[in-house]
């Protein structure tokens, strides 16, 4: 086959291989990120559960003037372990549903102790102040319990799994995640990679330096395409601009986004370095041939 024709075909195959490299990176990232472990690692590293507990305490303290209910009434039932298990529970439940491990999205923390504390407080208050425990009293207790449960759920659900589910986003995203997690998808991408690499090698078998040239070009182009958006997101601190009242949700969200960006960035850097090495090898072999 003429050199120029072989070169053009190799260039076309290289374009396809760039997409396959990017595709395999995307599939691998999606498979890794659909596991709850990476989120829980970040939650623990950033001590999110401790921040949740502190935020709740501040919230209930701030509300004391208007509700008359001391923060201790709520906080005595929220041990460090309970808060941590609840925060982790939301993540695990949400991610298991998202990845298809669970078919049902259902997570309900145990609020028995909280409800009992609130009821006890109201009963003691009513007895101390001779208030009748009528239907109005019962309603007040029930609404206080409901509001407390709602507030605690909102604070502990740091990745907003409940919201994502109720607004239909989690079920929608689930379809894509389950599809990408199918082993056949990654196997197909890798198989195509191998086939096209084999074709490239066969086309350039008489000029071994060109194999390194094409490999290097493919990796450098893939690296550049992945680096541009990741460098932009990192350099502009893009996710920091997202202003959220609750510190723990803000930290969780931004940490998750930056971790995802860092993973892609690292892959891009590895491709870039490997690409440069291959180009260098191509250069060395070409020089030796010309001597």
């Amino acid at each position: 086959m003429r050199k120029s024709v072989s070169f053009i075909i190799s260039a076309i195959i290289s374009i396809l291989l760039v997409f396959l490299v990017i595709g395999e990176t995307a599939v691998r990232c999606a498979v890794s990120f659909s596991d709850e472990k990476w989120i829980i690692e970040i939650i623990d590293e950033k001590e999110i559960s401790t921040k949740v507990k502190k935020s709740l305490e501040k919230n209930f303290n701030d509300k004391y003037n208007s509700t008359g209910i001391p923060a201790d009434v709520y906080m005595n039932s929220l041990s460090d372990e309970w808060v941590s298990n609840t925060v982790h529970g939301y993540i695990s439940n949400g991610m298991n549903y998202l990845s298809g491990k669970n078919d049902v999205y259902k997570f309900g923390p145990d609020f028995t102790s909280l409800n009992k504390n609130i009821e006890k407080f109201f009963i003691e208050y009513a007895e101390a102040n001779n208030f009748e425990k009528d239907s109005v009293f019962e309603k007040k207790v029930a609404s206080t319990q409901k509001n407390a449960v709602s507030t605690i759920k909102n604070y502990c659900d740091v990745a907003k799994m409940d919201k994502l589910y109720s607004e239909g986003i989690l079920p929608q995203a689930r379809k894509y995640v389950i599809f990408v997690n199918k082993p056949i998808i990654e196997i197909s991408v890798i198989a195509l990679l191998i086939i096209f690499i084999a074709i490239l090698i066969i086309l350039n078998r008489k000029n071994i330096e060109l194999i390194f040239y094409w490999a290097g070009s493919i990796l450098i182009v893939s690296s550049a395409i992945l680096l541009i958006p990741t460098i932009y997101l990192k350099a502009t601190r893009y996710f920091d601009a997202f202003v959220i009242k609750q510190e723990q949700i803000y930290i969780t969200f931004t940490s998750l986004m930056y971790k995802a960006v860092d993973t892609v960035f690292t892959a891009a850097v590895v491709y870039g370095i490997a690409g440069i090495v291959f180009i260098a090898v191509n250069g060395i072999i070409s020089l030796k041939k010309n001597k």
Partner: protein
Amino acid sequence: MASSKKTSIIIKIITPIFIFAICAVIVAILAIKPYNKASMYLDIAFMDTLKTQANDGSVAGLTIKENEIIEDDSLSTSDTGEVIWPAFAEQYAVLKSDALELSIPVYWGISSEILEKGACQQSDSTILGNNGNTVISAHVNTFFSDLGKLKVGDKITLTTKYGYFTYEVTELIEFNKKDKKYLIPTTDSRLTLYTCKNDILGATEMRTGVVCKQIEKKFYTQ
């Protein structure tokens, strides 16, 4: 010989740049739809009362919304009540339907910026809760991408901070953007949802949507 070597080197340098240009353009085109979808998902996920706006009123990339919309079935309601008028560009409702997989934020007023955040109600159309034609539109490639899935008989609920209002689809419509017959005031209480009709070359002059009759009107009493 030397010049053919030079040519060969130039070709070897230009080829990866050429491959990069082609791949970058294709990736950018392919990324538009997922980017719009991801932005829309984030907008929907963060439309609640736990957010606050940045001091300068705008945030790079992601839009933050603060609203007081109540989505609580257990609150007591009445068939009569007062509407609470929103400010221009305020999110004042959430639109939900079993036929549509996502909840859609609805803003008061219409502009190109607000259309990026959610569906928009024309402020000269009837506010939810009053009698007349409530007209809401959104982009076909984002918030109303599933509008075509609605069929006659499907229920749609709009929830605000003062009540919730349920409608039933009675008619599927298509009209030219210059034709206002579905957008004019009416005496009966109805909801008109519309978006651009898409074809292979992009949005056209035609609009497509649904007309719905009101079947339930509930104002919060608490």
